[in-house]
């Protein structure tokens, strides 16, 4: 009786409420789930968040781009510029733009005027988060309607990195910004990419539509729904129920294994990995003694941490610059795990009973579990690590106020060694100074090499300098690199991205005009 009642109620409910319609024969709407409640400000020159960059990359182009699915600048190819050349001294760069590229929303053809406006906007502190990437720019000018010339004050390691489809290199349409103002533009971003902005509903989704005038051809995906789903469980369930076609994964091994077992699902662990590094603040005792820092380095077992995080989703760090970055030194002299040697070094430094050090740490669970693993390893060597957990925004503020002896930081950057070395290990970036970025260790041993490599026009010599810089930083034990955490995404096997997804600098898979559903 009860069973019959339940069945009848279910049938009645289904009839009244209407069950989901079956999938259409040829799906043209891509539904993506991202781990965030919002994408943030919709301005490619301001937004540096993972959900924001992932969304904005589908609307904007650069003058050049890294081949979709790749990470290394070696794969640089034309985007809005069809070709380019540089002067022998590397200080003058000329880009020849494609003709007939149309801005979204009827804002006209993208010309050299737009490129000049866009790069100047990216270089301006009030309108760009990435203005410091353009300090070497002397002037940007339109030689003619389709030619842009960039003159540098001094050479930089990767000029193409500053004009590619990433961060400040995203090209905005001048007429759109001038007509709507910066605030208006942020509510209706206008680019030249394969997808155009359609709608943004806070806390729910951003919607893009195909740009039929896209210069590479009419996109086969007609609509993109980018849903903000901060709950990992809810995102996974929505993917399982077929309400999403692609999701940002939780960065752990369990998620990887479980999701991989779902039928017709592909799980990708892609680059760029975020490298987890323990920065040792050398301005604070006892970490001002190199023997203590060496003891800490000997106490940390990187392979064990990778086992903890999961071998499918993470790899051991090999240097203070992540793998795959131009100039990465895979043979940096990292100290091997050796708790006995760590104890001996501590005794030699006058701490036979061990030491206590303190770390202000974010409450983000993924990072916290690693730090707890490190804490356990340090304990075996007589080092007590006291962790003060604080909420993430507080963490970012306090570590920049030079309040923590030990800083555990996880980051991915533009894949040229210069960026990582400059931001984390150059004396200009030491926290607490006006030019501070993220040098938490107060490291300054490799300034000369980093600066010299910046001005070096010969790539091989620049790479050699970056390798030397890494060796010096590792020997000084400014920081202990631990592991690299890959970006995890899952999508249905009937979604053909149009390229092999190995990496994405914007941390979400690029969508191309050829991206489509196969059945």
């Amino acid at each position, binding site marked *: 009786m009860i069973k019959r009642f339940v069945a009848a109620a279910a049938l009645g409910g289904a009839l009244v409420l209407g069950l989901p319609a079956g999938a259409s024969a040829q799906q043209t709407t891509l539904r993506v789930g991202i781990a965030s409640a919002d994408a*943030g*400000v919709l301005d490619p020159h301001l937004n540096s968040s993972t959900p924001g960059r992932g969304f904005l990359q589908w609307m904007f182009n650069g003058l050049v781009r890294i081949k979709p699915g790749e990470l290394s600048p070696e794969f640089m190819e034309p985007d809005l510029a069809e070709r380019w050349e540089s002067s022998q001294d590397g200080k003058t760069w000329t880009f020849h733009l494609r003709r007939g590229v149309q801005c979204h929303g009827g804002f006209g053809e993208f010309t050299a005027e737009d490129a000049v406006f866009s790069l100047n906007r990216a270089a301006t502190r009030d309108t760009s988060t990435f203005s410091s990437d353009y300090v070497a720019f002397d002037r940007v000018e339109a030689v003619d309607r389709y030619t842009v010339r960039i003159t540098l004050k001094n050479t930089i390691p990767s000029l193409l990195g500053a004009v590619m489809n990433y961060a400040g290199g995203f090209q905005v349409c001048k007429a759109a910004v001038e007509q709507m103002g910066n605030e208006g533009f942020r*509510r209706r971003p206008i680019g030249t990419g394969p997808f155009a902005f359609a709608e943004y509903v*806070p806390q*729910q989704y951003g919607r893009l539509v195909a740009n039929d005038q896209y210069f590479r051809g009419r996109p086969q995906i007609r609509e993109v729904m980018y849903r903000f789903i901060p709950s990992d*469980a*809810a995102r996974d369930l929505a993917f399982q129920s077929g*309400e999403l076609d692609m999701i940002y994964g939780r960065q752990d091994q369990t998620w990887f294994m479980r999701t991989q077992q779902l039928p017709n699902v592909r799980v990708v662990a892609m680059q760029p990995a975020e490298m987890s590094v323990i920065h040792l603040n050398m301005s604070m005792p006892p970490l001002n003694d190199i023997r203590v820092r060496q003891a800490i380095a000997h106490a940390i077992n990187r392979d064990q941490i990778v086992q903890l995080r999961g071998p499918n989703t993470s790899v051991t760090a090999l240097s203070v610059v992540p793998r795959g970055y131009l100039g990465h030194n895979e043979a940096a002299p990292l100290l091997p795990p050796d708790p006995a040697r760590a104890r001996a070094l501590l005794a030699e430094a006058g701490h036979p009973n061990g030491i206590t050090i303190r770390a202000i740490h974010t409450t983000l669970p993924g990072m916290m579990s690693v730090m707890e693993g490190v804490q356990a390893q340090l304990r075996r060597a007589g080092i007590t690590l006291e962790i003060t957990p604080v909420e993430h*925004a507080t963490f970012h503020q306090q570590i920049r106020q030079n309040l923590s002896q030990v800083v555990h930081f996880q980051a991915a950057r533009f894949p040229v060694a210069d960026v990582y070395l400059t931001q984390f290990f150059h004396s200009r970036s030491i926290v607490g100074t006006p030019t501070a970025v993220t040098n938490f260790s107060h490291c300054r041993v490799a300034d000369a090499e980093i600066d010299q490599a910046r001005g070096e026009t010969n790539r091989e010599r620049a790479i050699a300098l970056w390798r030397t810089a890494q060796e010096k930083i590792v020997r000084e034990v400014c920081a202990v690199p631990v592991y690299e955490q890959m970006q995890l995404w899952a999508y249905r096997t009937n979604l053909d991205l149009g390229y092999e997804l190995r990496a994405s600098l914007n941390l979400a898979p690029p969508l191309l005009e050829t991206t489509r559903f196969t059945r």
Partner: protein
Amino acid sequence: MSAFIVKRLGFAVITLWAVLTLVFFIVRVVPGDPAQVVLGDQATADAIAAMRVRLGLDRPLVLQYAEFLFGALRGDWGISLVTGRPVLVEVMDVLPWTLELTVASLFIGAIIGIPLGVWAAVNRNRIPDYVTRLASLLGLSFPAFVSGILLLILFAIQLRWFPVISAQAEGVGGWLRALALPAFNLGLIMAAYITRVTRSAMLEVLSEDFVRTARAKGVPWRVVVWRHALRNALIPVITIVGLYLGVLIGNSVLTEIVFNRPGLGKLIVGALNQRDYTMLQGMMVIYTLVVIVVNLLTDLAYGAADPRVKLK
């Protein structure tokens, strides 16, 4: 009655001002920098300082406070520091979602909780009473996100009756399907509260003389319970519903996250994480107003439930 309402509104204005002032200063005391959040972790100290100027965070606190108060009086709640969109627009975009969820869960809570409470009271210390008490205890102690996930696994994944993403709805059918699970999830917690309060209020009323008199006069037991006793037991139920309504709006955040619904709870958590001061201030105005209005309505409902109650 009108004197009562005017007096309450006077108190409301003072309460609102006090809450706004507290919120204004508390959010600025909490560590964390909105400029840093906006610019991300690659920003230089110079860029962060420039952003603080752009956001107006470098000006004296008293000046910021005065601007905020005058703006609030004019109905201008400012621009979100993080998204750059007007706070009022962002709040008003999600407010209907929260109200809809709250009202629906309140309705579910009442239609389950009141009859269960009455049933338990009239069957005191018998199996129905034990079962109801156990069930309401479970409802109170079950975290909303756990029950939410369980409901999703059963009804959205296994049975496929409802969508996982409850913010996607087309038509009345779609709207009901989208609302059903989150409302039921919150409604169960509400029902647990109402059941327990109804039961204890009913037990008290059922032992009073007028109930015994009504029974002695031959009034049917059903009429005694549902017409005479329940009406007299409603005051504490209304009190708990009124009190809990404010809590429900705040507590809906877990349900909003699990069922992927927009709402005030989710907005306030996001604003707090991102140190979006202007957004937090705007949210507090709404919360305070809602609590004040709900309390006023609760007081008015006393009179409607029991004519002996006079509002002065």
